[in-house]
């Protein structure tokens, strides 16, 4: 058994499957740091051999010695075909260390270089002109990854787009914050599970504790008392999901998303059932807090899908949270007056009983879907 296992590990560590056949690309990354730019340019050895000949003895086996004796020519050939400039004029390119890396279609020469741009301030735009292999293989593309101030943008260079002007302006913090506020509001608006959870917990708020336990609306709650009850539930929920949303977004905790989504569905079932069969008694704020922790993980996975800019992590996290709160408050602002007006009606009693049961049923189906990874309702 052990021998077999070792064999298997050895076999699988022969990692390079035969290399792919693909059209030619080079991978260029530029990291702008003030007036200097740190560059790394991965060019396929096969392409370099085609262009300037690397295989000294022509035996088809390109060795490290054959490559490193040509480092000077490789750097000169490559940098001849790349021009970087700012508004103040062309930047000086200085070749640095050369290494080897693997991409899907074989081994690449990695050329590190530094560009020094003129002027007294960091450039606001970069003018990049890329002509590598343009004469030998017009289907070759240069794939650029440009980083500055924690922002990353990409560009594709090909003969038709050999020269491109790339803006280095950072988006304003305020605009970024605003965008994430919108994401937050939108997510609450389309997140039926969060809305139903909150509504289930809020339904009894306009009824007296004793009456809500009995499921009848004979008793009356003062508007002030109802308001504070709602406030407690919403605050507990908010506090809880803010904590887990932040922890998960900062990668301090992570939970499998299927588990989180299932737990959210379960929380809706319990919150709704509580209106028919009192489960939490007078402790709805506590329930809101405990389940709020789970909902926070759900928000975090949305935020992760949106892609969090590392440079503006806190700004966007805060913006998303504010957006979620605004969405929630809007729901409460509509719910409370309506519920208050209807609290003594037959309709409200039906809503408490049958409405809650309906919510529990829908959430139970969600739970089943998410646990079994199937789709029953849209």
């Amino acid at each position, binding site marked *: 058994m052990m021998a077999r296992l070792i064999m*298997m590990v050895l076999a699988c560590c022969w990692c390079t499957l035969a290399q792919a056949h693909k059209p030619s690309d080079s991978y260029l990354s530029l990291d702008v740091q003030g007036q200097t730019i740190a560059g790394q340019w991965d060019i396929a050895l096969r392409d370099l051999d085609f262009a300037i000949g690397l295989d000294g003895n022509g035996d088809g086996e390109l060795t490290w010695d054959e490559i490193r004796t040509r480092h000077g020519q490789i750097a000169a050939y490559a940098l001849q075909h790349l021009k970087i400039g700012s508004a103040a004029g062309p930047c000086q390119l200085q070749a640095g260390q050369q*290494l080897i890396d693997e991409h899907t279609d074989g081994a690449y020469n990695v050329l590190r270089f530094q560009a020094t741009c003129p002027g007294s301030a960091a450039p606001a735009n970069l003018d990049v002109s890329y002509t590598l292999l343009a004469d030998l293989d017009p289907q070759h593309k240069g794939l650029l990854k440009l980083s500055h101030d924690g922002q990353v943008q990409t560009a594709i260079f090909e003969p038709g787009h050999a020269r491109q002007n790339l803006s280095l302006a950072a988006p304003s913090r305020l605009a970024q914050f605003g965008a994430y506020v919108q994401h937050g509001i939108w997510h609450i608006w389309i997140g039926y599970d969060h809305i139903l959870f909150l509504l289930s917990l809020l339904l009894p708020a306009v009824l007296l504790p004793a009456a809500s336990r009995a499921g009848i609306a004979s008793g009356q709650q003062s508007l002030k008392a109802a308001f504070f009850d709602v406030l407690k539930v919403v605050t507990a929920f908010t506090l809880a999901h803010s904590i887990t949303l932040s922890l998960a977004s900062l990668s301090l905790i992570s939970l499998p998303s299927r588990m989180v989504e299932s737990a959210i569905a379960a929380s809706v079932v319990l919150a709704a059932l509580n209106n028919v069969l009192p489960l939490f008694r007078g402790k709805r704020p506590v329930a809101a807090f405990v389940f709020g922790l789970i909902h926070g993980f759900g928000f975090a996975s949305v935020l992760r899908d949106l892609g969090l800019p590392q440079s503006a992590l806190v700004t966007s996290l805060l913006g998303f949270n504010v957006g979620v709160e605004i969405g929630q408050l809007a729901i409460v602002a509509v719910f409370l007056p309506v519920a208050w007006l209807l609290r003594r009606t037959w309709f409200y009693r039906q809503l408490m009983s049958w409405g809650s049961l309906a919510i529990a049923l829908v959430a139970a189906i969600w739970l089943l879907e998410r646990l079994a990874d199937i789709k029953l309702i849209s």
Partner: protein
Amino acid sequence: MKSSIRWLASALCTGLCSTSLATPYIPKDGAAVIEQLPRRADATQTELRRLRTQLNAQPQDLALATSLAQRYIGLSRSETDPRYLGYAQAALAPWWQSAAAPVAVRLLRATILQSTHQFNAALQDLDAVIAQQPGNAQAWLTRATVLTVQGNYAAASASCARLSSLAAQLVTVTCLANVAGVNGRAEKSEQLLDLTLQRSAGAAPEMENWALTLLAEMAARRGDATVAERRYRQALAQQPRDSYLLGAWSDFLLDQQRPQEVIALLQGEQRIDALLLRYALALQAVPGQQAALARATTELAARFNAAMQRGDTVHQREQARFALLLQHNAPQALQLAQKNWAVQKEVADMRIVLEAALAARDFEAAQPVLGWIATNKVQDVALQALAARLAARKAT
């Protein structure tokens, strides 16, 4: 226990592989072989180098340029290596952008354009060639195949018909069968093609191989596995390295639940994405191959990722199959399959849309393809089975 250890081993090695790919390094040993290249003394390479040197001296020499481009296109096919298409394009550089390029250039340009799925641009060139040279058989044939891929069956048949006075009978009949096979006349055209092939002794080997492969596919589509297998084997005996044929034969074997044979067949063919995909699918169908499967899946993901980075959509059909069958991501597979369907309309393109729609339970998404199959009377047992399953699921 055994399987969990194996799983662990495969997870471990996926981790090792991806980290080893991630960081540039300096080799420790000067004699270490870093890359395999074509040998300089290789006859093909010597000849190509000689032609290139000549062309560099006289880049406007049309005959020289087209003959070099032709050789590179041939090499790109035999090696299934798209870099050679770029070299072919470079040879045609003086005329590449020209709207009024010479006929010989336009014909080659159309071939290169259709290889990168720029079908409409390719058709423009072919139409221009035909306008100037109505007797250019190659142009009619290429035009017919592009139109068939686009699903323009009437125009494709008309193009094939033009071949009858210009090329051998086998060419015309194969061209027509390629269209008729997916256009409601499968049985008759299969018989005719079979008969024509028997009477065409001494035809060009590529032509014969195309006819045989098509005949095998036609038999498979009507569910006759025995005849299909006989024809596939006959074709493979003649052209054992033809990558299209290897792909079609592998798909047939996978459909027949014979993954072991696919693994043996494709062991050495993993440079080609489409064949690596079939290899991985075969590994998945066999127990105890988790480590190899994890390796192949990681590699395929990296390759599709590299293609997407450069904005290529040439392998969207394969990528959709990958997403559906190996990554089990039905919604993404469906999206890819639909994008591919907008460009290509072959049986395999129909099939992946239906499979992904079924898995994603998105019956609306299947409708355009189901409509297409009904309107054009596409005959294929696998498609008909999928359509029936979709109808049954929709009814419940």
